[in-house]
């Protein structure tokens, strides 16, 4: 049992699974000797050798496609994109091949690749280092999209993602990489990939979020509790395929729902959740489902990025609005 940060939990899960399964290999830019620019792969090269921990040339398309090729041979590659803002060159391979290899060959070949990328804003990085475009991957059939928001969930969900026999886009909220520590047992226990996590029970409103925004959402729930509003907080975590059951059960109970995410609003994952709830819980809802999100703008550079990110006050205000109805 060790007190670890989220990024250390990622490292722990990688090391665990590499030790347990020879087919697990890791590749990406600067992940071997340097241990990754966020240190997520630190120590792996020394422990498992260059053959299984591979620094690649600088080419994201190649990283994605090489991982796909490896997977057709039964390896289980975990490919790191240094930042989510650089994943786009790999989109063709992820969309047109990783997501389709099993379907295309009627199950003859498959693609058990985990595509890891740190994502989201709030660390005052340069342009393109603060994106949250999980929606692009959630729209692609054949992909799983998984986003942990605590060290424990990072450990358990990453293990599950590596063991899963299909491709997973695993997005790590870099703002939370070192924000908190949690005691995580290195017991090899995976978490389910098809269930949202209810972090806090409540009866007046359902707050749905994921990634780094979970922090503000939980804070908002605290603030609301002081006002006498009981908020249920759900971490979606397994963004796609989406566990609508857990969300609908909660809304059936509370009758009100606020969705919080850092990504742009337009055609974001919040839209899918809101649309699904508004359709399936039509008669349960006592107020419209409201989304608190990033703006539909380019993420501002560091100096103004906080103005872009959803704040606790924005969430509280949205809840007050739906409660007033």
């Amino acid at each position, binding site marked *: 049992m060790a007190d670890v940060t989220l990024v250390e939990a990622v490292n722990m899960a990688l090391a665990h699974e590499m030790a347990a399964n020879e087919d697990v290999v890791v590749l990406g830019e600067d992940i071997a000797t340097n241990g990754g620019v966020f240190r997520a792969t630190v120590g792996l090269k020394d422990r498992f050798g260059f053959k299984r921990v591979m620094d*690649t040339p600088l080419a994201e398309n190649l990283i994605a496609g090489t991982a796909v090729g490896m*997977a057709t*041979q039964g390896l289980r590659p975990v490919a790191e994109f240094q930042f989510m803002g650089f994943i786009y060159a790999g989109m063709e391979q992820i969309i047109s091949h990783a997501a389709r290899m099993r*379907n295309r060959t009627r199950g003859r070949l498959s693609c058990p690749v985990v595509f890891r990328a740190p994502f989201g804003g709030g660390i005052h990085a340069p342009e393109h280092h603060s994106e949250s475009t999980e929606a692009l991957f959630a729209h692609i059939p054949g992909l799983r999209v998984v986003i942990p928001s605590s060290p424990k969930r990072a450990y358990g969900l990453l293990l599950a993602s590596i063991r*899963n026999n299909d491709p997973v886009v695993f997005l790590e909220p870099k703002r939370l990489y070192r924000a908190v520590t949690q005691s995580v047992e290195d017991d090899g226990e995976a978490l389910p990939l098809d269930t949202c996590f209810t972090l806090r029970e409540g009866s007046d409103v359902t707050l749905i979020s994921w990634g780094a925004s979970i922090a503000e959402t939980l804070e908002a729930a605290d603030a609301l509790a002081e006002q006498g509003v009981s908020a249920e907080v759900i971490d979606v975590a397994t963004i796609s395929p989406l*566990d609508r059951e857990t969300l609908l059960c909660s809304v059936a109970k509370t009758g009100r729902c606020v969705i919080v995410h850092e990504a742009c609003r337009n055609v974001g994952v919040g839209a899918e959740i809101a649309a699904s709830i508004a359709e399936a819980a039509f008669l349960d809802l006592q107020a419209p489902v409201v989304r608190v999100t990033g703006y539909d703008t380019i993420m501002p550079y560091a100096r103004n990025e906080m103005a872009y990110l959803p704040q606790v006050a924005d969430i509280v205000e949205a809840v007050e609005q739906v409660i007033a109805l």
Partner: protein
Amino acid sequence: MKDRYAFHVDSIAYLDESGDALGDLPEWSDDRDTILDAYRHMVLTRTFDNKTIALQRTGQCGTYPSVLGHETIGTAIGQTLAKDDVLVPYYRDHAAQLLRGVTLTEMLLYWGGDERGSAYAHCPEDLPVAVPISTQCCHAVGVGASFRIRDQKRAVLCSLGDGATSKGDFLESVNLAGAWHLPVVFIVTNNQWAISTPRHLQTGAETIAQKAISGGLPGIICDGNDYFAVRHALMHALERARTGKGGSVIEAVTYRLGDHTTADDATRYRPAEELKQAWEREGVKRLQSWLHHQGLWDSDREQALQVSCRNQVDKAVEAYLATGPQPPTAMFDHLFETLPAALAGQYERLQRREVKHG
């Protein structure tokens, strides 16, 4: 002060246009049976090609890319690859794929719009056709890397067209093959055209093979209508790969004798004269002539072969046409290893809908 780094690519050929040897043939040319097999396979491939175009014209097959002019390259690939090598084909590799074990029926299913055409019962490790051009190059280096990781003495053969060499995928993969010393042989079928785009608009490079230099790989050019040249280049390259000496690039020069696909009309953009000249150089006739000159072939054998090829193809077409479509719900069957609960509703809706709408 000046230092010079020098590079080169060689171009090889063994037969002239009329099938006469330009000089000594490779040693392995003693193996007449294999060469006869090669010729027979080229004819089978061409028979299949004609038939499939006819099927398409009569609405019994989807858009189909003719293999006309590419039989020699594909046959040489298929014969040279070892069983446990892996073929990473492109969509004009019928000849190679058939030798690997893909059945004529699977091939028809694929071009007929049925996913089962890529299930490859007999060559389970070969990759399916990658429609997005050049993307298969990255898979090839991935497969090659897995051989290295597992210390396996196997080679990967990655096939692509001249157009595909302009896309980053190829160049990135060549670079990785060089940097990681991977057992990957890239064979570029330079058929002078990428749909309507002629070779000279595709690149300012004098040869395609020289693109190998960018990744530190050796490059070689061979006459793609010369069975001896293609096979010899491949044997050498694959042997290098299997014995840990690294990857390489082969440019096989040929000509696309047909339209790009059945959806294309090459007369819009291609001079008739160029096509006519290309027919003079084509590879099937050339190998036939060589066999004739050696006394290994005659018109009786030719006739018998034609009949046997037609029979084989007809049987495959029959099996193809007799294969009913998959049920619509098959679109869910291999989306994930097991159907996620989130999709159960859609699956059921589709099932119900089919029952209703027919």
